Protein backbone atom coordinates (compact mmCIF):
# COMPACT_ATOMS: atom_id res chain seq x y z
CA UNK A 1 0.00 0.00 0.00
CA UNK A 2 1.06 3.62 -0.56
CA UNK A 3 0.80 5.51 2.70
CA UNK A 4 1.22 9.25 3.29
CA UNK A 5 1.83 10.70 6.75
CA UNK A 6 0.94 14.12 8.18
CA UNK A 7 3.01 15.36 11.15
CA UNK A 8 1.15 18.21 12.84
CA UNK A 9 2.96 18.63 16.14
CA UNK A 10 6.19 20.13 17.45
CA UNK A 11 8.94 17.55 18.01
CA UNK A 12 9.47 18.97 21.52
CA UNK A 13 5.92 19.88 22.55
CA UNK A 14 4.27 16.71 21.28
CA UNK A 15 5.06 13.10 20.45
CA UNK A 16 3.78 13.48 16.87
CA UNK A 17 7.19 13.24 15.19
CA UNK A 18 8.21 10.25 17.31
CA UNK A 19 5.00 8.27 16.91
CA UNK A 20 4.82 9.00 13.19
CA UNK A 21 8.40 7.79 12.82
CA UNK A 22 7.65 4.53 14.63
CA UNK A 23 4.54 4.07 12.47
CA UNK A 24 6.49 4.70 9.26
CA UNK A 25 9.26 2.30 10.20
CA UNK A 26 6.75 -0.42 11.06
CA UNK A 27 4.89 0.13 7.77
CA UNK A 28 8.10 -0.20 5.79
CA UNK A 29 8.93 -3.32 7.78
CA UNK A 30 5.63 -4.83 6.64
CA UNK A 31 6.48 -4.12 2.99
CA UNK A 32 4.38 -0.99 2.51
CA UNK A 33 5.58 2.23 0.93
CA UNK A 34 5.67 5.57 2.75
CA UNK A 35 5.33 7.92 -0.19
CA UNK A 36 5.34 11.28 1.50
CA UNK A 37 5.61 12.84 4.95
CA UNK A 38 4.07 16.28 5.18
CA UNK A 39 5.13 18.56 8.05
CA UNK A 40 2.54 21.21 8.90
CA UNK A 41 1.81 23.59 11.80
CA UNK A 42 4.31 23.29 14.65
CA UNK A 43 5.50 20.10 12.94
CA UNK A 44 7.77 22.18 10.69
CA UNK A 45 10.17 22.68 13.60
CA UNK A 46 11.13 19.04 13.08
CA UNK A 47 12.87 20.07 9.84
CA UNK A 48 15.34 22.45 11.48
CA UNK A 49 18.99 21.65 10.82
CA UNK A 50 20.02 23.59 13.92
CA UNK A 51 18.37 21.45 16.61
CA UNK A 52 21.05 20.23 19.02
CA UNK A 53 19.32 18.07 21.63
CA UNK A 54 21.34 16.52 24.47
CA UNK A 55 23.35 13.50 23.36
CA UNK A 56 21.12 11.07 25.26
CA UNK A 57 17.97 12.36 23.48
CA UNK A 58 16.86 11.52 19.96
CA UNK A 59 17.13 14.07 17.17
CA UNK A 60 13.92 13.20 15.30
CA UNK A 61 14.79 15.32 12.30
CA UNK A 62 17.92 13.24 11.75
CA UNK A 63 15.97 10.01 12.17
CA UNK A 64 13.54 11.15 9.46
CA UNK A 65 16.43 12.15 7.20
CA UNK A 66 17.94 8.67 7.43
CA UNK A 67 14.65 6.87 6.90
CA UNK A 68 13.78 9.09 3.94
CA UNK A 69 17.12 8.52 2.30
CA UNK A 70 17.02 4.76 2.72
CA UNK A 71 13.44 4.40 1.48
CA UNK A 72 12.99 7.29 -0.98
CA UNK A 73 10.36 9.13 1.03
CA UNK A 74 9.37 12.66 -0.02
CA UNK A 75 9.61 14.92 3.03
CA UNK A 76 7.60 18.05 2.37
CA UNK A 77 7.48 21.00 4.76
CA UNK A 78 4.56 23.41 4.36
CA UNK A 79 6.19 26.59 3.12
CA UNK A 80 3.72 29.02 4.71
CA UNK A 81 3.93 27.30 8.09
CA UNK A 82 7.72 27.17 7.86
CA UNK A 83 8.18 30.84 6.97
CA UNK A 84 6.00 31.90 9.90
CA UNK A 85 8.15 29.81 12.27
CA UNK A 86 11.58 30.61 10.91
CA UNK A 87 12.37 27.40 9.02
CA UNK A 88 13.88 28.54 5.71
CA UNK A 89 15.84 27.19 2.77
CA UNK A 90 18.47 29.30 0.98
CA UNK A 91 16.01 30.67 -1.54
CA UNK A 92 13.46 31.82 1.06
CA UNK A 93 16.18 33.21 3.31
CA UNK A 94 17.33 35.41 0.42
CA UNK A 95 13.81 36.37 -0.60
CA UNK A 96 13.01 37.56 2.95
CA UNK A 97 16.38 39.15 3.62
CA UNK A 98 17.28 36.72 6.39
CA UNK A 99 20.85 36.06 7.48
CA UNK A 100 20.79 32.27 7.21
CA UNK A 101 18.91 29.18 6.13
CA UNK A 102 18.19 26.28 8.48
CA UNK A 103 16.12 23.71 6.58
CA UNK A 104 17.75 20.31 7.07
CA UNK A 105 18.93 18.32 4.06
CA UNK A 106 16.33 15.92 2.71
CA UNK A 107 13.41 18.23 3.50
CA UNK A 108 11.72 20.33 0.83
CA UNK A 109 9.53 23.42 1.21
CA UNK A 110 6.31 23.25 -0.79
CA UNK A 111 2.65 24.23 -0.74
CA UNK A 112 -0.47 22.75 0.79
CA UNK A 113 -1.43 21.26 -2.58
CA UNK A 114 1.01 18.48 -1.71
CA UNK A 115 -1.10 17.64 1.35
CA UNK A 116 -4.39 17.75 -0.53
CA UNK A 117 -2.83 15.54 -3.20
CA UNK A 118 -1.57 13.08 -0.58
CA UNK A 119 -5.02 12.94 1.01
CA UNK A 120 -6.70 11.93 -2.23
CA UNK A 121 -4.03 10.02 -4.13
CA UNK A 122 -2.46 7.81 -1.47
CA UNK A 123 -4.09 4.61 -0.28
CA UNK A 124 -4.10 6.07 3.22
CA UNK A 125 -3.20 9.35 4.90
CA UNK A 126 -2.30 8.95 8.58
CA UNK A 127 -2.38 12.08 10.76
CA UNK A 128 -0.27 12.57 13.88
CA UNK A 129 -1.55 15.62 15.73
CA UNK A 130 0.27 17.90 18.13
Amino acid at each position, binding site marked *: *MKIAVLVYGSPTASSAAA*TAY*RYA*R*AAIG*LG*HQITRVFFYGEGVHGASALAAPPQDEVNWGQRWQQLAQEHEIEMIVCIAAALRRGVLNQQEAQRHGKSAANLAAGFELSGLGQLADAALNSD*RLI*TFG*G
Partner: protein
Amino acid sequence: MILHTVNRAPGSHAALQQCIQALSGPAALLLIEDGVYGATPAFTRLFHRLDGTVHCYVLAADLQARGIDALVDGRFQVIDDAAFVQLSLDCDKMVAWY
Protein backbone atom coordinates in the same frame (compact mmCIF):
# COMPACT_ATOMS: atom_id res chain seq x y z
CA MET B 1 -14.68 1.69 8.70
CA ILE B 2 -13.03 4.66 10.40
CA LEU B 3 -9.98 4.54 12.64
CA HIS B 4 -10.17 7.14 15.40
CA THR B 5 -6.97 7.95 17.30
CA VAL B 6 -6.81 9.93 20.56
CA ASN B 7 -3.47 11.20 21.90
CA ARG B 8 -4.41 13.40 24.88
CA ALA B 9 -4.70 12.43 28.55
CA PRO B 10 -8.38 12.33 29.63
CA GLY B 11 -7.56 13.91 33.00
CA SER B 12 -6.66 17.23 31.37
CA HIS B 13 -8.13 17.25 27.90
CA ALA B 14 -11.57 16.56 26.44
CA ALA B 15 -10.35 14.88 23.22
CA LEU B 16 -11.37 11.36 24.30
CA GLN B 17 -14.86 12.45 25.36
CA GLN B 18 -15.26 14.50 22.19
CA CYS B 19 -14.24 11.52 20.06
CA ILE B 20 -16.60 9.12 21.80
CA GLN B 21 -19.50 11.56 21.48
CA ALA B 22 -19.12 11.75 17.68
CA LEU B 23 -18.34 8.08 17.13
CA SER B 24 -20.57 5.37 15.71
CA GLY B 25 -19.70 1.85 14.65
CA PRO B 26 -18.39 0.02 12.86
CA ALA B 27 -15.23 1.77 13.99
CA ALA B 28 -11.87 1.28 15.63
CA LEU B 29 -10.70 3.51 18.48
CA LEU B 30 -6.96 3.54 19.16
CA LEU B 31 -5.39 5.31 22.13
CA ILE B 32 -1.83 6.53 21.55
CA GLU B 33 0.73 8.76 23.33
CA ASP B 34 -0.85 10.40 26.41
CA GLY B 35 -4.20 9.05 25.21
CA VAL B 36 -3.24 5.63 26.61
CA TYR B 37 -4.03 6.85 30.12
CA GLY B 38 -7.65 6.57 28.95
CA ALA B 39 -7.31 2.77 28.94
CA THR B 40 -6.94 2.63 32.74
CA PRO B 41 -9.97 1.69 34.89
CA ALA B 42 -10.48 5.24 36.18
CA PHE B 43 -11.87 6.25 32.79
CA THR B 44 -13.98 3.24 31.81
CA ARG B 45 -17.20 5.21 32.39
CA LEU B 46 -16.37 7.29 29.30
CA PHE B 47 -16.70 4.19 27.11
CA HIS B 48 -20.11 3.00 28.30
CA ARG B 49 -22.02 4.52 25.41
CA LEU B 50 -20.02 2.55 22.83
CA ASP B 51 -21.63 -0.60 21.50
CA GLY B 52 -20.00 -3.83 20.37
CA THR B 53 -19.31 -2.50 16.86
CA VAL B 54 -16.59 -0.19 18.19
CA HIS B 55 -13.34 -2.03 18.79
CA CYS B 56 -10.94 -0.44 21.28
CA TYR B 57 -7.15 -0.66 21.01
CA VAL B 58 -4.21 0.83 22.86
CA LEU B 59 -0.59 1.14 21.72
CA ALA B 60 1.86 -1.06 23.65
CA ALA B 61 4.97 1.13 23.51
CA ASP B 62 3.12 4.15 24.91
CA LEU B 63 1.73 2.04 27.77
CA GLN B 64 5.19 0.71 28.63
CA ALA B 65 6.78 4.17 28.54
CA ARG B 66 4.20 5.35 31.07
CA GLY B 67 4.40 2.30 33.35
CA ILE B 68 0.72 1.43 33.01
CA ASP B 69 0.80 -1.81 30.98
CA ALA B 70 -0.54 -3.74 34.00
CA LEU B 71 -3.47 -1.34 34.49
CA VAL B 72 -5.24 -1.73 31.14
CA ASP B 73 -9.00 -2.25 31.22
CA GLY B 74 -10.26 -5.51 29.70
CA ARG B 75 -12.13 -3.65 26.95
CA PHE B 76 -8.85 -2.85 25.21
CA GLN B 77 -6.67 -4.92 22.96
CA VAL B 78 -3.00 -3.99 23.36
CA ILE B 79 -1.28 -3.75 19.96
CA ASP B 80 2.27 -3.10 18.77
CA ASP B 81 3.38 -0.70 16.04
CA ALA B 82 3.02 -3.29 13.28
CA ALA B 83 -0.56 -4.03 14.34
CA PHE B 84 -1.21 -0.26 14.34
CA VAL B 85 -0.12 -0.18 10.70
CA GLN B 86 -2.32 -3.16 9.86
CA LEU B 87 -5.28 -1.60 11.67
CA SER B 88 -4.83 1.68 9.76
CA LEU B 89 -4.96 -0.29 6.50
CA ASP B 90 -7.95 -2.39 7.52
CA CYS B 91 -9.83 0.90 8.01
CA ASP B 92 -10.74 3.12 5.02
CA LYS B 93 -9.82 6.40 6.62
CA MET B 94 -8.89 7.94 9.93
CA VAL B 95 -9.75 10.83 12.23
CA ALA B 96 -7.07 12.02 14.65
CA TRP B 97 -8.49 13.63 17.81
CA TYR B 98 -5.96 15.91 19.53
